[in-house]
């Protein structure tokens, strides 16, 4: 018993090490094949997981439990791409004098919609991260900044981003700006407070080493504190990513012009469950992709952090 546990554990740890940061010199030539061999089972499990879920849904539909008018199964809402895609477009088609077949093709329309939503999330995340890191660091760097800003930030952080929606519209009207503003608001307060907490949690020894080497306050922040907090702040960013997607949809649903949120609103108002589920599938795929991209970025930028997933697998 104990032997098998041990073996499992070491296998799990090897797996984690292989996923994470094995020194590049360890593998000489077949890097691509290695990587493929590692990634294929992952893809397989993902497909199986999603497939099982879809299968249950289809079975329920066959059994007549799931009403196709309310809960159309995957083959229905994914089956006719062009039919769904016709709802994705800039508003021109509904204007008088514009032919229904004008404008981008269905594929292009979907891509435009998806990319504009993704762009809003991306820009919002970037602004929020830079802002939160700067403000959080400034709060710890200068006591005056802390006294002036921290109470307000603490006070505003529990306010739901939804509550900011009217403000976004007052300030920015309609267009990209309010949606981006919403994303920034949704992330900024949490990330600022997380930055401060992580600064307080930096290993004192690291700071003391820098101090005994004669580092100035600026050098300590630049060379020790900022790199030390980046992994933690990045985790907060990843956790809030889904929040960012959520608020972007809400912002878009109020009339930004085009975007996934707007299509969902359209689906709701026209009672089109197929379109709703089609959008949900798209959003899920997008969220999944963004999370994957974030993890890749994490591996690149934060190369010294070991991937902890899989550590508990041997228990």
């Amino acid at each position, binding site marked *: 018993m104990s032997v098998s546990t041990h073996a499992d554990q070491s296998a799990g740890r090897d797996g984690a090490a292989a996923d994470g940061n094995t020194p590049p010199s360890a593998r000489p030539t077949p890097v691509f094949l290695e990587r493929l061999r590692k990634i294929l089972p992952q893809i397989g499990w993902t497909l199986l997981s999603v497939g099982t879920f879809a299968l249950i849904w289809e079975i329920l539909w066959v059994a007549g439990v799931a009403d196709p008018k309310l809960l159309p199964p995957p083959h229905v809402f994914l089956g006719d791409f062009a039919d769904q895609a016709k709802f994705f477009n800039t508003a021109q088609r509904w204007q008088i004098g514009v032919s229904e077949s004008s404008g981008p093709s269905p594929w292009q329309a979907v891509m435009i919609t998806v990319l504009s939503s993704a762009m809003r999330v991306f820009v919002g995340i970037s602004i929020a991260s830079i802002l939160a890191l700067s403000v959080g660091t400034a709060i710890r760097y200068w006591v005056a900044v802390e006294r002036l800003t921290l109470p307000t930030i603490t006070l505003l952080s529990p306010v739901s981003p939804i509550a900011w929606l009217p403000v976004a519209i007052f300030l920015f009207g309609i267009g990209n700006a309010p949606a981006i503003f919403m994303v920034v608001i949704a992330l900024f307060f949490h990330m600022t407070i997380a930055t401060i907490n992580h600064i307080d949690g930096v290993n004192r*020894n690291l700071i003391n080493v820098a101090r005994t080497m004669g580092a100035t306050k600026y050098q300590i922040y630049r060379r020790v504190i900022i790199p030390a907090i980046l992994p933690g702040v990045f985790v907060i960013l990843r956790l809030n990513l889904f929040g960012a997607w959520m608020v972007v949809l809400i912002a878009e649903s109020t009339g930004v012009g085009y975007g996934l949120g707007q299509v969902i609103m359209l689906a709701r108002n026209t009672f089109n469950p197929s379109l709703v589920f089609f959008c949900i599938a798209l959003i899920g795929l997008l969220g999944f992709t963004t999370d994957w991209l974030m993890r890749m970025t994490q591996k690149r930028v934060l190369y010294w952090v070991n991937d902890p997933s899989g550590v508990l697998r041997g228990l």
Partner: protein
Amino acid sequence: MDSEAKAAPDGPAVSCRGVGKIWAAGTARAHEALKGIDLDVEPGEFVVLLGPSGCGKSTLLYLMAGLEKQTAGVVDYFGDPVTAPSPDRSLIFQETSLFPWLSVWENVSFGLQIRGDSEPERRDAAKQVLRRVGLAEVGTKRPDELSGGMRQRVAVARALAMRPRLLLMDEPFAALDVQTRQKMQDFLLDVWRESAASVVFVTHHIDEAIALADRVCVFTARPGRIKEIVPVDLPRPRDPFAPESEALRRQLTALLKDEVDRAFAEQEGLLEVG
């Protein structure tokens, strides 16, 4: 005392007179860590501070490094009062204190970068120091790819890169296994002999004290005071099983036992009151 302070180069490397430290002074949580410490560390001397956990020996080290401020007395470094940390007094910690995001050579040359040296200078210096600690090959690795003993050697190399005249070591080998620890002690003695720096070394291991020290300062439990300074006049390398070592071990064990007993009794007393 003043006359000592003026005689800078010939005087002691570190001179503590009546040093005391009260943590959180003036609050309800105030407690006295150190009291009335008088201690001179001569240039090139290896002094071990030995005492039960929490007796304030690390605190004394931090005061010498200039990371904390004493609440009583004076700490002089070559005749000048210690007011701030200085690269001339390097501190080495118990846990790994290497920067995980820097490669080994970047860690070693961290202080040089702070000082503003150019990259080629830093590479050269790091290479030299790493060769001295026997790690010439691992310069481009990252700390988490090294074993515990290697990491502490890198930490020593990082301290040496600044060419300090005083090495302050806070239980640097406590997290290592016994065999690695012995290797590291031999390694440290080699480095110390080559560098001619003074070393103040904190430990609660009697064997470690006997293996390393010119003098062992035995601390009392809180507040930490120097109970006795035991000179160790044995030639190095030392045989831990020689009769002289045995006698020292017995003496230091007896000195420490009283303190540990007292610390326990005090804690139990506190518990009863609480």
